């Protein structure tokens, strides 16, 4: 029998992921691994992980990685890339990491046009610490630190990072995708590939924002989470290419 599908070699074969059922981190990590293999760059890749559930992959990814201080992934990646320009350097960050504590580092790396790729996993909540409010939490969405749901007058509005970075001159590529169905998942893979290609071509800063779910902290099962993405998240975070230069 012909083997038409195998697990990406960028994931250690004897390890299991520590993600909750329905979590999309494992999907995205697989997509990244496939892209790295297809571009044949695994042996010159350095991944800088944010702090949060995104870091749970460190145990089982099979290529070079480090963990930045919470929010500092873009600054740490800047150091790695500038000291080894021939490496492919990407960050992998959640919304709390990238858009709250790391806002300055994200904005500044984008503004410098650092030749790095940013994979931004937006699940609208702090996953690892147990479902606290994030900068991307929707109005009305409950969080463990917003028991009545996010209230605009008190907490402000969800932050749209692609649109915010689109105010800057330097970034070359900003796209928002999702993994809520197979078609969007394939688009996410293509977006990741494009962000990495941009870097290999020396073009500069690219970010792919991936709208995902957090079934555990949203208090929904995996299927209901997919519906929530479609009905609530995507109207607030519309998918598409925001910038492509």
């Amino acid at each position, binding site marked *: 029998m012909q083997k038409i599908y195998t697990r990406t070699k960028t994931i250690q074969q004897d390890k299991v992921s520590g993600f909750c059922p329905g979590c999309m981190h494992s999907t995205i990590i697989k997509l990244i691994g496939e892209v790295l293999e297809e571009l044949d760059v695994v042996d010159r890749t350095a991944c800088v992980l944010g702090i949060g559930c995104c870091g749970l992959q460190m145990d089982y990814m099979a290529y070079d990685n*480090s963990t930045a*201080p919470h929010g500092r992934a873009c600054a*740490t*990646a800047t150091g790695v890339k500038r000291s080894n320009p021939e490496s492919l350097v990407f960050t992998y960050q959640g919304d709390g990491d990238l858009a709250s504590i790391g806002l300055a580092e994200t904005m500044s790396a984008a503004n410098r046009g650092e030749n790095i790729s940013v994979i931004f996993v937006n699940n609208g909540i702090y996953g690892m610490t147990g479902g606290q409010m994030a900068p991307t939490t929707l109005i009305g969405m409950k969080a463990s630190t917003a028991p009545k749901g996010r209230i605009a007058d008190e907490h402000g509005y969800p932050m749209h990072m692609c649109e915010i970075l689109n105010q800057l001159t330097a970034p070359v590529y900003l796209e928002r995708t999702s993994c809520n169905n197979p078609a969007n998942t394939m688009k996410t893979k293509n977006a990741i590939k494009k962000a990495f290609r941009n870097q290999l071509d020396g073009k500069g800063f690219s970010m792919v924002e991936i709208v995902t779910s957090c079934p555990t902290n949203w208090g929904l099962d995996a299927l209901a989470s997919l519906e929530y993405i479609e009905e609530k998240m995507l109207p607030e975070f519309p998918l598409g290419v925001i910038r492509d230069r």
Partner: protein
Amino acid sequence: MARLFMKGTEAVAEAAVRAGCRFFAGYPITPQNEVPEYLSRRMPEVGGVFIQGESEVASISMVYGAASAGTRSMTSSSSPGIALKSEGISYCASALIPMVYSNFARGGPGVGSIQPAQQDYFQATKASGNGGFQMMVFAPSSVQEAVDLTYEAFDLADRDRNPVCILADGVIATMMESVEFPPMKSNVEIDAIKESKREWALVGHDFEKEKRAWIEPGHWQTKDMQKANEDAAAMYLEWEKDIRVEEYGLEDAEIVLTSYGISARVVKSAVSILRAEGIKAGYIRPITVNPFPYGAYDHINYDKCKAVLNVEMSIPAQFGVDVKVGVKDRCPIEHCLCSGGNIISRNAVLDAAKKIMKG
């Protein structure tokens, strides 16, 4: 190489370049702005990288990244900026990332004052970030010594895979002195240093788990975290051999002055005046303040010594607490202190010493 007349900040920056430092990120703060300014000109000349980070937090994170990728890297700041860098310093210590940073300390706490002080002693030597890690901390008392120690700091950082701190102050930063520089490391030497880190550095590896580089600033398993703490503690004990201290006149001293960094400069001058006036004075000047040369205080002749005089630009005393550990109650300890950006005056030291001798 000919002697040059240079400011402390610029001399430290040049020493780093000569030691093979090829990555610097920093954020402006007085009194060390000339470090980033100098390196913004100098790094491009040697094929290195200079970045003005968006904050101290970002700058140290950039250094963490660059050093993780095998490049000799440095950052610099002054007291409030060092407080912000403590996050990244702790990450470097935890993840076994060698790097060097200088603190040209100023008055505190808070934004404090922009003038020289020694008020970051505990921070540098006891708790430069969370988690109870330690670093070698060098305390130069001249521009030349700052140059020599900075140059060597990179070797020690690489040897231990640990951060090394140059604890200077605003006087060393802004004072101009004549200096002689150590040799410039060649590109061949610098490449060899980077190559020697290939195994663990983020330079790309074959994708098999044994080969990947994994920079880990922490551990999920508590047993692994404790093991890392134990390994670090064992390394700190090894530093006993790296202790550096200058001692003078301890055999017959009736009074021993002790001080570090710039205030030790003042103390040395006071001791020679006291000796000329017939008072048998000696001094102990730790050059490494961590590891601390507690043993030097055993060399005091306690049959003759009336008191140890701790001279320090910090109120309350901080260095004095380590002195107390070294003296072990074998004689009284008096203090001559100033703080908040005031520089210790020789007359104040002489008066304090003479008061002890009269009393």
